[in-house]
């Protein structure tokens, strides 16, 4: 018997350069906030999503270390790692554990220490999300791949760099209202002029900031007092690099994972009124929106509303996205899911509709989608 799966509680720690906190302290903070907001939980399983604790914190078996630090005992303990999509991969893992009946209550904590080293070392570790024998070894970093795709995008659809810069401006505007966002300041339409180039044409303001964070969710088979149901999940994969694909500007795995999740939820994409997407670099925001099927190819920069942060009737990245909320790698999918969970519970406008989260590792190399709705 497949059981229904609910999110009952959640929390998020401010994303920042937490020089005073290691991964244990961050995970503990997320756990404490979850319990102080929603009451104590009794998980029988702990799932930790973290991308690079070996490189950044010299830690293997991080889930066991965190379980011990939180003084949680008699648990099934796992770490899920799928690069920068680890968070949503962890949600799919928790979903599977609960729906199968193997677990009754799963505490999922996404945690990452990113800002432990100089930028070049952080960039080196982040480059390991692709094929290390190919792009990694040659120094062909994710930023350079995003820059190349940005140029192909601008060339094919006739946009200027200034046209694309709408996205960071919008994300910063949204992040100002998000208490756990890393970059809570506004940009102007020409703020890029003072921003250093990381890989031309992309500037620092086109990339997610480096920051540490932890976010937690409690996922169970019981709806309890407050609950958002996970109505659908999906996942798919593609080549590690984008350029060997037939069309590097369409992330097939994003479409496939979203379609699978919609099918499982039994709804069309028009019922999704709010989505958090993976916008690690400016061009990826547009490519993802188009790959999801929310807008025609090449139309995303024209169709995104700067007033309402929406495409048609779907709100997008109210959190500020990876761009401005921040992107603590393995924790990001948990932040995204927590943000949609909070909005479904708190926004009357969303009470009768669905929320969604899209995550990916690299340029749609591996993709995950989750669809949720409020039930209590």
């Amino acid at each position, binding site marked *: 018997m497949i059981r229904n799966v609910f999110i009952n509680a959640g929390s998020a720690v401010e994303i920042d350069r937490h020089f005073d906190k290691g991964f244990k302290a961050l995970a503990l903070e997320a756990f404490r906030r979850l319990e102080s907001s929603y009451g104590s939980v009794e998980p029988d399983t702990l799932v930790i999503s973290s991308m690079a604790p070996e490189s950044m914190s010299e830690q293997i078996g991080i889930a066991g270390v965190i379980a011990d630090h939180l003084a949680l005992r008699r648990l099934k303990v796992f770490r899920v790692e799928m690069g920068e999509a680890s968070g949503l991969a962890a949600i799919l893992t928790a979903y599977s554990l609960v729906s199968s009946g193997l677990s009754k209550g799963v505490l999922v904590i996404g945690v990452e220490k990113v800002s432990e080293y*100089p*930028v*070049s*070392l952080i*960039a*080196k570790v982040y*480059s390991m999300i692709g*094929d290390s*024998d*190919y*792009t990694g*070894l*040659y*120094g*062909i*970093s994710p*930023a*350079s*791949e995003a*820059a*190349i795709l940005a*140029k*192909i995008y601008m*060339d094919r659809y006739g946009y200027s760099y200034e046209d694309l810069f709408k996205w960071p401006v919008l994300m910063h505007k949204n992040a100002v209202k998000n208490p756990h966002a890393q970059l809570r300041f506004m940009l102007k339409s020409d703020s890029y002029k003072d921003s*250093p*180039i*990381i*890989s*031309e*044409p*992309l500037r620092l303001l086109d990339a997610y900031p480096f920051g540490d964070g932890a976010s937690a969710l409690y996922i169970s088979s019981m709806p309890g007092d407050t609950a958002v149901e996970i109505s659908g999940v999906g996942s798919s994969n593609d*080549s590690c*690099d984008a*350029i*060997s*694909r*037939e069309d590097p500007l369409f992330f097939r795995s994003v479409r496939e994972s979203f379609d699978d999740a919609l099918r499982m939820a039994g709804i069309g994409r028009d019922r999704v009124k709010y989505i958090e997407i993976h916008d690690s670099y400016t061009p990826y925001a547009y490519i993802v929106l188009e790959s999801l099927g929310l807008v025609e190819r090449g139309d995303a920069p024209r169709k995104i509303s700067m007033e309402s942060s929406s495409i048609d009737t779907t709100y997008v990245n109210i959190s500020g996205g990876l761009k401005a909320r921040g992107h603590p790698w393995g924790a990001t999918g948990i932040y995204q899911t927590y943000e949609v969970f909070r909005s479904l519970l708190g926004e009357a406008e969303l009470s009768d509709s669905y929320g969604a989260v899209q995550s990916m590792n690299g340029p749609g190399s591996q993709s995950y989608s989750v669809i949720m709705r409020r039930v209590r």
Partner: protein
Amino acid sequence: MKDSAPRIWRMRNNLYRIRYSKCKACGASFYPARASCIRCSSRDVEVRVSLGLGTLVEYTVLYQVPARMQDNAPMVIGVVRLDEGFELYGVIVDADIKDLRKGMRVEAVLRRLRVDGSSGLITYGIKFRPVIGAAHGEGSGRG
């Protein structure tokens, strides 16, 4: 992080030449080489070695260079379309950034990738440089 001698030795055929896959079922060529076709899923693929001549399709100048590559900063990262009909990402060397043009002819060269301290391994691999006398448009129609 120290470089592993067995790893670099094991990778020699991929580091010192461009090995790609050619699908015998649908004719697609692709890089890196894989055990089955990324277009039609056929298992009937063979590994071939490229002659290393191609065209620069797109490029970016990377300033946020990962650790251990910083001697090379800024790096030019290009998309090269090899004459055998597939595309890959490659590092472009021996060119002033202002002289780079989309569509220019490039050729593979063996260059140093990284050095592991003063006593560790030096890893070499394939990069690309403009073909001497290369001009925009030259070689068009060759793939």
